[in-house]
């Protein structure tokens, strides 16, 4: 039982990370209908920036804020410079550009900081933090930080004029433009925010998975699964989907362990995590593409 609760807690901590990346994906998807295949690599790059700042002597949280701000600027630049001119390009071109971004981020990080795996510090004090035997200090910290970030985003989108303008630009660009919202810049801001949220996820998860240029591959896949489970058109759903998928992932591995212990037959374990995500992605896409909380898209024929 204690093991079960531990697994549940660590599932929630992973889920918080997936929720952040999934939210970043959904923020871009809702406003532009693009799936950002480079989201994970952008987050990884920001994580390296924060690592670099820390090795130059900055404290964790200063480096954290600087890296998140850097990601924001990077996101805005990528949208304005690379994606804006391709706004009406065919789907394949857009996807190719995202894959290009993925390759550039990954190889540049490898070129600048090498492919060696690096340790990444945790900002949360070891003692007096976390609940003994249930959840570790870092995991609890991750959940708290991501909840704060998600809360801030909610407040921003719900209660500020800028947030309202961004939602308007995403939902109905023509009407938003007519009432004076600068839709172009709202999309760029959305990209910036998405990149920042991704960076938060990257910096938080780096202590767990260690820092290397390929660290976000699996996490991106899980984030895709989360966004799809929650409904790729619904930000709240994506966050919830993140937690659901995070817990599900650990529960599947836990169940696999228990079965192996009881019967001695290995079916599924930690080694099959990505396969589980693949199955979730394909199942949701084919059975219920709108996800749990998404809008069903009706197309006029």
């Amino acid at each position, binding site marked *: 039982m204690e093991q079960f609760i531990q697994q549940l807690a660590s599932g929630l901590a992973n889920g918080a990370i997936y929720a952040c990346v999934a939210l970043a994906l959904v923020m871009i998807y809702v406003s532009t209908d693009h799936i950002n295949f480079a989201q994970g690599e952008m987050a990884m790059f920001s994580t390296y920036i924060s690592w670099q700042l820390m090795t130059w002597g900055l404290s964790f949280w200063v480096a954290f804020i600087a890296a998140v701000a850097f990601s924001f600027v990077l996101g805005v630049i990528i949208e304005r410079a690379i994606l804006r001119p391709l706004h009406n390009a065919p789907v394949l071109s857009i996807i190719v550009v995202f894959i290009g971004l993925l390759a550039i981020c990954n190889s540049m990080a490898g070129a600048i900081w090498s492919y060696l795996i690096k340790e990444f510090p945790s900002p949360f004090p070891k003692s007096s933090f976390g609940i003994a035997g249930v959840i570790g200090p870092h995991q609890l910290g991750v959940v708290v930080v991501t909840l704060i970030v998600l809360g801030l985003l909610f407040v921003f989108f719900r209660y500020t004029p800028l947030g309202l303008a961004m939602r308007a630009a995403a939902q109905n660009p023509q009407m938003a433009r007519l009432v004076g919202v600068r839709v172009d810049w709202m999309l760029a801001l959305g990209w910036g925010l998405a990149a920042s949220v991704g960076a938060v996820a990257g910096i938080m998860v780096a202590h767990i998975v260690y820092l290397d240029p390929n660290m976000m*591959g699996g996490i991106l896949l899980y984030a895709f699964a989360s966004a799809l489970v929650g409904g790729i058109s619904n930000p709240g759903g994506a966050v919830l989907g993140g937690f659901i998928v995070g817990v599900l992932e650990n529960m599947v591995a836990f169940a696999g362990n228990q079965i192996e212990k009881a019967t001695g037959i290995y079916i599924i374990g930690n080694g099959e995590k990505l396969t589980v995500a693949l199955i979730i992605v394909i199942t949701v896409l084919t059975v219920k593409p709108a996800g749990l909380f998404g809008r069903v898209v009706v197309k006029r024929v």
Partner: protein
Amino acid sequence: MPAFPKKLLWVLLALAFLVPLLHPLFPDVVSGYRLFLVSTMIIAAIAVLGLNLLTGFNGQISLGHGAFYAVGAYTAAVLMDHLNMPYWATLPCAAVVCFIVGYLFGLPALKLEGHYLALATFALALAVPQILKYKWLEGMTGGVQGIVLNKPEVPFGLPLSEDQWLYYYCLIVMVVLYWAAANMLNSRSGRAMMAIRDQYMAADTMGIDTALYKTVTFGISAAYTGIAGALSASAIAFVAPDSFNIFLSIKFLIGLVVGGVGSLAGSVAGGIFYVLVDNSAQALSLFVRNDLGLPFDLSAYTVFGVLLIALMYLMPMGIVGGVYLAWRKLRGVRG
């Protein structure tokens, strides 16, 4: 894009068959290593050809063709390792296995379009190395260690070196596959495939069984890429799960985009291109470090990434298509 000029094709083909025979004359230029490199280019060209059949001619986007390449390679490796099958017999087996796998993956893909299909295949590409390491398959696949194989032996006592024979073997397979693809595209089925790409609804209304065509195209495309995988298994004489990662699929995409989406000749050019860049990465890196004085290693993927983005702006039809258009413009042909 119009078909490749036939005369040029024959000349290139004749050259491709004759060049290795020049080895005694220019041992340094036509070296064994160079022939091996060209063999890997041919293999890459076949893989890109497979992807092009699906994405370029049928309009289904796949970011996960590395998966079918892996299936082909492992099918060949397992058959050679466990059943002592001769290397040439593994090709049809790999083709059949990959056709079935591709056909089955094509079934859920029927419901997916554009971004979603890309997402599903991207997920497949990310998961492949793990699936290959699955414990129950370990007895067959050798787990993380992979399988070590023997290089193809020269048959009938032909006076060729191993590298030369490998080159001819790959070249013959590619010529056959290219010919088959060209004929298929030029037939009723090929036109149906392209009609589905261009106007799905109209094709459906005209009575084309779109579901059947899409799934079968997925299967054929996977079979092509799988054959390339099987060839690579015998060429490199080694398979291991981690070499079939997402970046393999990205390389195929590079070949597709550079050569030209929807161009058979372009696929070959694209395959040659990515192997070339991949292999000159070290020279490139040295050039950046020593001659430009920049303090980092430029990797092939930075070049690939920049190229992918730049091509989408400058030559959406790929380099072959772009050069062709420029040539027409120079000659003043309109339309």
